[in-house]
């Protein structure tokens, strides 16, 4: 009897832990976060993959050997949103459209959830710039909070909302 109740207790605890731990992990963005810079950072190509973190009042994007910094105090607006992108993207995703019997269409049903982080900031001359990043779910709000804590402004103080546009692809087609 005792062993059965112990087993049930362990089972319930495991189930609860299984539900809570992934959420907690998703919310933690300790250290650099892997992101895709869709557009906007000066000197960085569109759809550049890199890491993003906030340190010493600076938003720091590292792409390969190059890096780009934006001062948190120069950020006029930081907005997060929930979005999704194709699970199979890029050239393979494009080529899959030619698969027989609608195989490519089936593949395009599989989408992964992502967060988007949109910034508006001013340069030294007062010129307004915008930058868009996509990143794993749960990380955009953490970066936003860090930015706001270090002097960035926001017009949307709440957490991220689902984007009006249900999909944002970071595939190469958007490149000019």
């Amino acid at each position, binding site marked *: 009897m005792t062993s059965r109740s112990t087993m049930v207790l362990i089972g319930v605890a495991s189930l609860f832990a299984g539900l809570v731990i992934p959420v907690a992990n998703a919310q933690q963005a300790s250290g650099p976060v892997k992101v895709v810079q*869709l*557009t*906007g950072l000066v000197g960085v190509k569109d759809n550049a993959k890199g890491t993003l973190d906030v340190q010493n009042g600076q938003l720091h994007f590292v792409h390969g050997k190059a890096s780009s910094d934006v001062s948190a105090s120069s950020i006029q*607006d930081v*907005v997060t*949103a929930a979005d999704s*992108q*194709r699970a199979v993207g890029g050239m393979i995703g*494009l080529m899959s*459209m030619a698969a027989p019997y609608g195989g*490519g*269409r089936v593949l*395009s*049903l599989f*989408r992964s959830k992502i967060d*988007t982080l*949109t*910034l*508006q900031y*001013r*340069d030294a*001359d*007062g*010129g*307004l*710039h*915008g*930058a*868009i990043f996509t990143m794993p779910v749960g990380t955009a709000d953490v970066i936003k909070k860090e930015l706001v804590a270090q002097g960035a402004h926001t017009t*949307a103080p709440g957490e991220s909302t689902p*984007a*009006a*546009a*249900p*999909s*944002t*692809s*970071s*595939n190469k*087609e*958007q490149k*000019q």
Partner: protein
Amino acid sequence: MKRILNAAIWLSMFALVFAASPLLAQKNKPTKMRAAALQVEMIQSSEIKLPAEFQVALYENLIRQLEKNGFSHVYRDGDHNAASVANLVVLHSTVRGFKAGSERARQVTTVSGATSIAVHCQFTSPDGTSLLEQDVNGKVRFFGGNLKATYDFAKKAAHVANENFSTAGHE
């Protein structure tokens, strides 16, 4: 001999007609307004609720396409350096329509899920005098993410600017 002369006259007449028509067509083209530089204001969307990433993507793509179309001096919203430029043209863009669409629906059905943006573009002088107003649309129908509609808009808007304004060394 007379036949050869006749043929030569007809030939020269044809050549004259073909050569003259492009010249006449160029005369009919509207004259471009002079713009030493362009300043792009941030996209406004007070009437339509536009996601922030679309607003930023419209703005950034617009600046990039204007630079690509030969406008060597494109100033951003709020740039102090633009204040001292003579013959500055300011581009105000206001979103009038937005349909979010769906990339998934586009890829699965091909016929539905198009994303479209309608933007009213107004070119003014720095004192606010309107020089040109035109509606420009951006669409993505088949391939690509929803943000590709912003690229489509930017290309068309840059084309409108290129058709109507000339900068030094850029006709």
